[in-house]
């Protein structure tokens, strides 16, 4: 499992790099420009992902500066290219974001919404998007959603797992569903 962490700070210092240096045995750090660094973290199957919200708070209190932190699974780069992330990270608030939080935040920008819409449709197909929106329409009642879509409850579960697998966004949670609804619901 490879996770990428992107950090945006007005001026990146070596001390900031030092924090991530020992995060795991397999860490690679790239300085992308004056304000962005990328940390690639390889985790073993049973290794837990560290709490990036906690690290973010620590950085803010130690450096007394605002910092934007985004951590995403490697596969996300298949549908959100890195160049897009470099631009988008500047738009985020000074917080730590996972992919769900990142998409919710970008849903506030019309042009970003259009881009994400295209990417998600290409990745998941219209059928899956309809499924997600139906869940929202049915107030997250999965049995009713399955009925309305004329499918077995287990088929619906299969779809949701597949969405999670492809996007790392869990549509079974309110937060995950919100990420999609923000983008697709006119």
């Amino acid at each position, binding site marked *: 499992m490879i996770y990428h962490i992107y950090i945006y700070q007005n001026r990146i210092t070596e001390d900031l790099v030092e*924090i991530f240096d020992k*995060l795991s045995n397999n860490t690679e750090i790239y300085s992308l420009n004056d304000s962005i660094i990328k940390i690639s973290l390889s985790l073993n199957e049973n290794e837990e992902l560290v*709490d990036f919200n*906690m*690290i973010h708070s620590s950085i803010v*209190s*130690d450096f007394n*500066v605002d910092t934007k932190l985004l951590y995403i699974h490697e596969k996300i780069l298949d549908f959100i290219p890195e160049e897009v992330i470099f631009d988008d990270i500047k738009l985020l608030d000074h917080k730590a974001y996972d992919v769900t939080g990142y998409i919710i935040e970008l849903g506030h920008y019309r042009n970003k919404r259009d881009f994400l819409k295209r990417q998600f449709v290409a990745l998941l197909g219209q059928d899956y998007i309809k499924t997600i929106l139906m869940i929202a329409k049915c107030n997250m009642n999965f049995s009713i959603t399955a009925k309305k879509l004329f499918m077995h409850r287990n088929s619906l579960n299969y779809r949701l797992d597949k969405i999670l697998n492809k996007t790392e966004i869990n549509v079974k949670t309110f937060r995950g569903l919100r990420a999609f609804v923000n983008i697709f619901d006119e």
Partner: protein
Amino acid sequence: MATLTFKNIKKIYTPGDPPAVVDFNLEIKDKEFVVFVGPSGCGKSTTLRMVAGLEEITEGNLYIDDVLVNDVAPKNRNIAMVFQSYALYPHMTVYNNMAFGLKLRKEPKDMIDEKVRNAAAILGLTEYLDRKPKALSGGQRQRVALGRAIVRNAKVFLMDEPLSNLDAKLRVQMRGEIIKLHKKIETTTIYVTHDQIEAMTMASRIVVMKDGYIQQVGAPKDIYDYPDNVFVGGFIGTPPMNFIEGRIDEEGVFTSEGINVQASKKHIKLLKELNYLGKDIILGIRPEDLYDDAKSKEKYKDSIVKFTVDVAELLGSETSVFAKVGNNDVTAMIDARADIQIGDDLHLALNMEKAHFFDPETKLRIKK
């Protein structure tokens, strides 16, 4: 150690939107423990972040020790922050977590060592210095987070809901520990919380906020006993103050649906002076100022009201009764009695000496 002065501070996030903080004027003395309290979105965290320098001040001036700091970089303000999420590096030991901030400030190694060990001794963390945060309990982790603030020898501590992550029992314990710590190191502290019990128990002064405005500033007891307006009366205190809308006649008798009580002499004098007699008014009374024992009923015989019990909750040492008369709902904290049933009639004496009157339009407490 430091004093802080806020002068007409204003914060607007997006032009055109309502401001997050307006007309914030406050002086915080050296060694004070000031608690900002208010509901979510009232501007308390924004104010804290402006002190830290993480948020720009739209208008007004902020002074630390009489030095204007509006444009001073956050790292030069000598401020330490403690957050709700513990703000620790999960992969570093307790020792390194506490030392990191000092290393960043290029302090000599022996100095760092001394400071970390001192802070660990104050917080009872000496034996955990080699552990990683994962091997600590929630309370211990929050103590390390406090330790990270202590070692910095900062002029001001800013704490943003530091206990929200802990369970109820641990929260009470940590509350005590933070107060003890403040007594020991006496650093000026601003503590943000939405929990009014934390505010009441910890603060030397409380700042109650709502919608970006300061509602009242004062010592916990003053705020509890003399709330400036309906919001403060309702926000501070559990259960909150009861508010009954009604009318007061020329004789000083307050009437509302099913309620007919005589105001106290001092209130009648005040209301007469300020020309409120014969007008609509809001009566505010704390749940503990309603009595059901015979002795009190005899003493306050001019202010007895018959209520119907909606719910009675036995809390052990006392019973909280939710009762109704007409459209008026009240809460009363009375002696623990198991024999109160839903639907019972309950005669309660109102201690009108301790009641407050509020203007129905401005919602402000009527006072000289």
